[in-house]
């Protein structure tokens, strides 16, 4: 299993976890201050091409963090799926970003830098920070007026490599090259508008850029871990759970859990669309095994710690494969419907004259019932009442301790 990120709360308790965040915050404030970000005139100079400190610090930070991050994931030290990646909301992001830019040039700070400025007793920093409190208050009070816009144009957890259709390593290299080009351009602008001589800057910066480019090239060669590689790493610990049947839940347990308000059940039907249209459980989502990886970013954003995924196929074959894929991709709390849809129908469709067993037993993981029409979830057996049935089974669902981001980057 990839060792990082750590399960902070389980390791250190809540107080310990928050202490870690406090220390990170201190290092954050420190690095902003030593870069001169407490001084509004220095920040604003960015937009008059006189002093491009903002551009240099920001993009250096981004490319250094990015290269370290994807090196750690490539080496199997860090699980990228347990990292908070800001979900994409296109239009609220664009409009919000433009508004932020306007606020930046009027006020001379961004929220983080104003805190640091205030902490070093700059009065304008204090006024900016007060202003942010006011702006936040107004947003909270007006958000309901444009709720649809705020929550619209949603693209889930979308990364640049996915968007561009490029391997991660290539994207990392392109971003590094773009940043280096911007640094070069920035230094030229500073020379023209700010009267600075780029030759006076320390030569080690060129060496640093070279190192980042080299690591990016190495990342292209190594590649990021594939689902198969991730499963291979997990197999020694997780395969036993499959063999011991700790993750195959009885239909009765699924039915009980659907009715349990403390658990948020997400059912993933991994069969093909034809079988799904014939019959599926009410509320089950069509997620054919072949396309399963496409919905993983969405599943990773499912917030609550009480979400339980139940994968199902006609028997267990495809569902077990889906279980391995999801588990390898760090989706928490995944279970398999024991015996699949066929077992479900054995239990819940025995009295339905419309649903009859096939005369000849079909092959593995094939539907062994026939239906008069493709009614999907409109059969009584798709949504049986909990009170009509009583089963004996060993409950297996256990909610995992949470690891990774608590969600909501700047939220």
């Amino acid at each position, binding site marked *: 299993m990839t060792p990082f990120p750590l399960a902070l709360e389980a390791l250190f308790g809540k107080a310990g976890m928050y202490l870690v965040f406090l220390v990170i915050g201190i290092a954050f404030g420190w690095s902003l201050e030593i870069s001169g970000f407490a001084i509004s005139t220095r920040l604003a100079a960015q937009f008059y091409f006189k002093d491009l400190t903002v551009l240099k610090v920001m993009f250096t*930070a981004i490319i250094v963090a990015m290269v370290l991050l994807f090196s750690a994931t490539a080496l199997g030290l860090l699980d990228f799926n347990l990292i908070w990646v800001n979900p994409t909301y296109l239009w609220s992001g664009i409009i919000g970003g433009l508004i932020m830019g306007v606020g930046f040039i009027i006020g001379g700070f961004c929220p983080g830098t104003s805190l640091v400025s205030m902490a070093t007793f700059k009065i304008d920093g204090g006024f900016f920070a007060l202003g942010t409190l006011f702006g936040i208050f107004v947003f909270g009070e007006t958000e309901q007026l444009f709720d649809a816009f705020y929550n619209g144009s949603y693209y889930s957890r979308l990364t640049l490599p996915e968007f561009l259709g490029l391997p991660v390593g290539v994207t990392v290299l392109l971003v590094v090259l773009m940043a280096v080009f911007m640094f070069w351009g920035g230094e030229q602008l500073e020379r023209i508008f700010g009267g600075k001589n780029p030759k006076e800057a320390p030569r080690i910066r060129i060496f640093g850029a070279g190192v980042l480019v080299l690591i990016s090239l190495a990342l292209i060669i190594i590649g990021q871990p594939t689902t198969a590689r991730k499963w291979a790493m997990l197999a020694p610990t997780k395969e036993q759970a499959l063999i011991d049947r700790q993750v195959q839940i009885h239909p009765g347990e699924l039915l009980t859990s659907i009715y349990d308000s403390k658990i948020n059940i997400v059912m993933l039907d991994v069969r093909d669309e034809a079988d799904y249209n014939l019959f599926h459980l009410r509320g089950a989502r069509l997620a054919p095994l072949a396309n399963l990886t496409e919905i993983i970013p969405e599943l990773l954003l499912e917030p609550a710690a009480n979400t339980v995924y139940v994968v199902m196929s006609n028997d267990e074959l495809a569902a077990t494969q889906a279980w391995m894929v999801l588990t390898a991709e760090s989706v928490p709390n995944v279970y398999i419907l024991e015996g699949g849809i066929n077992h479900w129908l054995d239990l819940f469709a025995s009295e339905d004259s419309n649903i009859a067993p096939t005369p000849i037993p079909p092959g593995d993981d094939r539907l062994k019932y026939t239906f008069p029409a493709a009614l999907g979830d409109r059969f009584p057996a798709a949504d049986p009442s909990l009170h009509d049935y009583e089963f004996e089974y060993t409950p297996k669902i256990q909610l995992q301790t949470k690891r990774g981001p608590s969600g909501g980057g700047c939220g």
Partner: protein
Amino acid sequence: MTSLATTKPKGRSLKARLFNRPEKPYVNPYLGGTLLGIVLFLAFFITGNGLGASGGLNRFVVLIQDWIAPQHVNRVAYLLKMAGGDKNPLDDWVVFVAAGAILGGFFSGWLNGRLKVETNKGPNISVHTRWGLAFLGGAIMAYGARMARGCTSGQALSGGATLSAGSWVVMFAIFGGAYALAYFLRKTWY
């Protein structure tokens, strides 16, 4: 009888300790950026979360709203997420990162002799105008930051490093908005 002199604190006063340290120059931006990048990486590596600032302030505002008008908070979905019922809005990682940023900024400013009560502004505007513009800019910035679900720290830095497509859009929009308006505000800075 003790003399008056002994009642005075020994050594330098607090004021002198805070403000009279020799002022050191800022570090090279590429070095500062590298350090910031390492901090950002470690945040992701250890915790899975990046950095944030406006989110912490947000929760502070909601805390005050929850004190004054808890019923109101319970009725507005956006606020409810953070402080509904007996939820404590400060019970969130970003609050501690933001509080830490204030402490870190203070310590760095102190040790490097850069604590100074002053107002940084362009030469052609008064101090009071600068204060008003800072407040106004802060309010606008924060409004945009909430709409975009993160500020320069939570979106541009953190999302930029994880290659979030949306965060790169937000980042360029911030620069775009600022550059578009910079010309008209040049009198306030130069």
